[in-house]
């Protein structure tokens, strides 16, 4: 995580094409994958990520800090994903190929990959209040304080949610589970 605040997030340059491009490059993967944990479909997650970028483009007030920018973007992603799930517009079709004709969104069936996918499925099966902190912590690499800012919760609460989420994962896993980051 950069320590120096990118100038454009907090003032001059905010909202310019360069700023949007920087955010797109910095966050698009994370936005899509965070949204995926809600909508479980990569095409829909990409659509939601585009909505988030449009919302960012329409924002007329610079952020207070880089941390604020990040928390806002992830919060908007979560809200838009939830709204999407409630909207009744959930697409019933799933694209099986990307624009190059490659199969996408389906896991590799090798033994290692199967194990990884079991972990993925287990995390995605967690209730949202545990799943999101687990995703942001283990996938995004964010600190408990950063996650607390995104979720508008106290850091101690986030810590508790992470611990409970890990315990749930242990119970769900057949064949053993090591929460080595504990």
């Amino acid at each position, binding site marked *: 995580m950069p320590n120096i605040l990118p100038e454009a997030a907090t003032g001059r340059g905010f909202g310019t*094409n360069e700023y*949007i*491009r920087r955010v*797109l*490059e910095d966050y*698009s*993967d994370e936005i*899509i*994958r965070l949204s*995926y944990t809600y909508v479980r479909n*990569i095409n829909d997650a*990409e659509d939601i*990520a*585009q909505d988030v*970028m*449009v*919302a960012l*483009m*329409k*924002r007329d007030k610079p952020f207070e800090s880089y941390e604020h920018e990040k928390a*806002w973007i992830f*919060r*908007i992603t979560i*809200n838009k994903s*939830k*709204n999407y799930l*409630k*909207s*009744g517009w959930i697409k019933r079709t799933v694209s099986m190929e*990307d*624009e*190059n004709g*490659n199969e*996408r*969104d389906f*896991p*590799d069936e090798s033994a290692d*990959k199967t*194990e*990884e*996918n*079991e*972990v*993925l499925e287990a*995390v995605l099966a967690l209730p949202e209040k545990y799943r999101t902190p*687990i*995703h942001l912590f*283990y*996938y995004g690499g964010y600190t408990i304080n950063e996650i607390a800012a995104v979720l*508008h919760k106290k850091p101690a609460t986030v810590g508790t949610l992470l611990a409970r989420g*890990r315990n749930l*994962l242990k119970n769900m*896993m057949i*064949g*053993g*589970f*090591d*929460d*080595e*980051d504990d």
Partner: protein
Amino acid sequence: MKTINQYKSAMDNIKISDSFVSRTEALLSEQKNSESLSGKHKRNGLQITMWSGIAAACVIGALLVRAGIIRQETQNDITIGTDITSSVTTEMTAAPADVGMQLDIEEDDAFDGLDINSGTTEAMTPTEKASDAGKVAETTHTVKSEGEQPRESKANEPALPEDAKDEMVMAAAGGIPESTSESADFAASLYTIDFSSCTAEIESYINDKTQSLIVALNGDEAKNYADMIADMIYSTEPEEKNPEFVSEFVLTISDNSTIYTIYLTQNGEIVVNTNFDGEQDRSTYVIPADSFTDIERSMFIKFGTDEDYDTFNANRG
């Protein structure tokens, strides 16, 4: 042995479209272009609105001045009539002071009518609307009890801002106590929900604290609940802190921009949580027990009968 780190690699294995960034850049530039076009339209629209507003203000001003002049003329006529011409007094069938008062009140109504019809009715709460119906009688009573002194002509009064006029009308109607700005803001936001495109549901935790029952609401039902709650919190000072609570019912209304989560708690509080573009705000209101019972009953009967509610109400500790 599976590890939590496998989650990261599994997530990374989910392929994102290679063209996502370029597609999004194209989309954003399209949006920017259409925004700048609509910005021009908006500016034109604003100019039209501004000129229309100025014209409407002129017309209202002219009508007010005219109403003031007519009333002064009428009062002069009556004074002359009671002092000099006995036939006029007879026609009015009342003592001169009373007649003066009644005319005064009618002028007030004309003034209020202009005021309200000029655009503030839409913003009025259902309570205001209800109390507005009884306004004439209330006003008459209030004025008569003030020693039956005719008030000074409105035409001589300085112009009031629209809000102040609304407050004055409400105060005259005797319906709306003074509100706190924060609760008024929250209430106002509930009135502005786009109910035509919202999704709404009530979750009940009455019978089982760990599992909820959910009932979906249509726009009209959601509006009824939102209006009811907005009326209740409009004049209630929010608590300084948001204490922990146990929910009985959770009403969730989401429109295109905001998620409203309204909790009815076991302690008889209403907790309103708004989530707008990632910015969250929460306020806790302790409302009068009878008001709370009304909203609680209205939510309860979505899951049971009136009799069930009475039983529930009688049995709780």
